[in-house]
């Protein structure tokens, strides 16, 4: 069999040229793979969902409801009634969250170890685009179950998009096929096409480019490889060893996420019910919560320039995220270097960068905390809204700065003691893990 194929396809050449590519081994490389497998599982479970989902709001009569419900909502109930259907839908939902979380942690790892430096600036940019695309794709899937909760949550994003100056209204109208409301029959087919076809295709193309560049530019190897095989790529062959490890990780991914998906059914549409005039108490998902938090504490002023409104929706929902994304994109270009980056940098040896990453994390956490403003007010009736906003502003600004200072001082102190140790023993100890 192998020989038959080999004579026709020259498999042995494929083997020596591609399948024996050396993959360096380090646990931190698995974060990107987890993101990839989340995407694979999203596609697989998504196929199952599209086979049963009806992208339509036409009213249908179903058992258990006095009034007709939208067909999209009814088809979600049908999916939930299938054997394993509820678990697969929950798995799709969980995998979306996990893909974004894993991509975020993968990006943190790249940042902390300096793997974004020359020659990998392009892949850093592609990675940021991928993270944004993943979030947008998740958002376009929000409204598809067409329950009361999903519609309200999507509405918040719709109004933020509308707040973009000049183009916002047109862009929102294109994405949602007009106004977003329960009576608009065109919205669901539009979002469905974007969510299951165009954004996944775009993601697929970008992931392909991301991987291709990674293969071309090689991993940033763990530092010990410099001693073992200087100037060479120390690693295991793609086939069979790396493939086996990837297979094991994929199975572990499916095992962990299916367990969570089965035990905790995410987004129970039955509990939310079909769209009604009553607004449920919604919160944006955790990856939007920091934007929502900033929106919650921004003052309510409005600025008119050249016929466009620059309100808090624009500043909190568009300006701040855009600035943060642009800032992240600029990172590799702020520290230009002549040499190629070949090895992972130890976070402990770059206290300024590491402290910056920790400070940014603290910023996200504090902005997320601000997203719970209403809950804080409800829990403490004595607290005035103005005082709480002031406290949250102080937290948002001061906490990251304090984090930076403390972690910088601690790392400097720890690192100086290590430098002394290196002077004494003449070699780095294993403690830099």
């Amino acid at each position: 069999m192998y020989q038959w194929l080999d004579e026709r396809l020259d498999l042995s050449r494929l083997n020596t040229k591609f399948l024996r590519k050396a993959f360096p081994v380090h646990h931190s490389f698995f974060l990107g793979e987890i993101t990839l497998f989340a995407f694979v599982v999203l596609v697989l479970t998504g196929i199952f969902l599209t086979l049963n989902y009806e992208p339509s709001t036409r009213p249908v009569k179903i058992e258990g409801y006095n009034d007709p419900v939208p067909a999209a909502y009814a088809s979600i109930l049908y999916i939930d009634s299938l054997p394993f259907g509820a678990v697969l839908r929950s798995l799709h939902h969980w995998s979306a969250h996990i893909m974004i979380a894993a991509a975020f942690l993968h990006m943190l790892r790249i940042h902390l170890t300096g793997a974004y430096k020359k020659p990998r600036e392009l892949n850093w940019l592609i990675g940021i685009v991928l993270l944004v695309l993943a979030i947008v794709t998740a958002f376009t899937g929000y409204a598809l179950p067409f329950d009361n909760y999903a519609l309200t949550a999507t509405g918040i994003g719709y109004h933020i998009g509308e707040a973009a100056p000049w183009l916002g209204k047109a862009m929102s109208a294109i994405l949602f096929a007009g106004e977003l409301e329960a009576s608009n029959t065109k919205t669901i087919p539009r979002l469905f096409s974007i969510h299951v076809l165009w954004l996944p295709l775009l993601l697929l193309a970008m992931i392909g480019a991301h991987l291709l560049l990674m293969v071309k530019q090689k991993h940033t190897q763990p530092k010990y490889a410099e001693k073992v095989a200087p100037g060479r790529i120390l690693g295991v062959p793609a086939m069979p060893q790396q493939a086996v490890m990837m297979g094991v990780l994929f199975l572990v991914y499916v095992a962990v996420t299916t367990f969570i998906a089965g035990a905790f059914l995410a987004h129970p549409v039955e509990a939310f019910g079909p769209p009604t005039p009553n607004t449920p108490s919604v919160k944006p998902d955790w990856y939007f919560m920091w934007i929502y938090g900033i929106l919650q504490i921004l003052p309510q002023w409005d600025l008119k320039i050249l016929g466009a409104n620059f309100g808090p929706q624009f500043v909190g929902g568009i300006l701040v995220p855009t600035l943060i994304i642009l800032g992240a994109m600029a990172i590799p270009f702020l520290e230009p270097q002549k040499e190629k980056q070949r090895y992972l940098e130890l976070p402990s040896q770059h206290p300024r960068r590491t402290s910056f990453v920790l400070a940014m994390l603290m910023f996200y956490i504090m902005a997320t905390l601000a997203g719970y403003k209403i809950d804080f007010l409800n829990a403490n009736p004595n607290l005035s809204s103005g005082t709480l906003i002031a406290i949250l502003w102080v937290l948002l600004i001061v906490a990251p700065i304090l984090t930076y200072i403390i972690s910088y001082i601690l790392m400097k102190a720890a690192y100086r003691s290590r430098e002394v140790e290196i002077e004494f023993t003449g070699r780095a100890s294993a403690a830099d893990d």
Partner: protein
Amino acid sequence: MADHDHDTHAHGHEAALEPEAPEAHATRRAVLQAAIGMGAGAAVLSTLYVGAGLIPKKEITPDREPIAQGDVLVYSQGPKRGQPINPAELKPGAEMIVAYPMNPESQVVKGAELKNTLLVMKLDPGTLDAETAKLAAEGVVVYSGVCKHLGCVVSNWVADKQLMLCPCHGALYDPKESGKALIVAPKPLGQFPIKLENNRIVIAGEPTRPIGVEAATDDGIRRV
């Protein structure tokens, strides 16, 4: 095992191990491979069962119930859609009507099920053979509308030859001879016994053949 340096072993096993016969190793490997193959095979097969959820359950609604004795024939299309067919309005040999049965009590037209499609036509009673005439009433004959070949609706009427034509593959049936299949189709169409009551056509019993596609057997049918 012996010819590489244990100090640089990736797994860091320093202890010298008993030298082992290669055959024993091969046997162990084969046993483990077989076990993993069996287990993984069972897992894959059981996972495929998830696909069984893609087979929708058929729901029997009132408009999908099978044709029953006493059902009234109604127009399936056109301006009189859903109204009972008046046999007095039919002209002999002129046309064929695609009809649905209607439950006389609930007034539900059973048109959601393709197999319920019926063909109604009035012919000159003198041209019918004895078998056909027995089930007909005043020259009105009723056949199942589902082609025996591949299940299309036999919707066309060849007026000059007085034959029923299926547009899919050109199957021809003769309504004068118990729906005999002339070409393409392997079996004759089933004829329904009927009676005429209050200017209505009413199903009076079971069809002469089961409804729907039937496999061909060597019963002398000419096929193209």
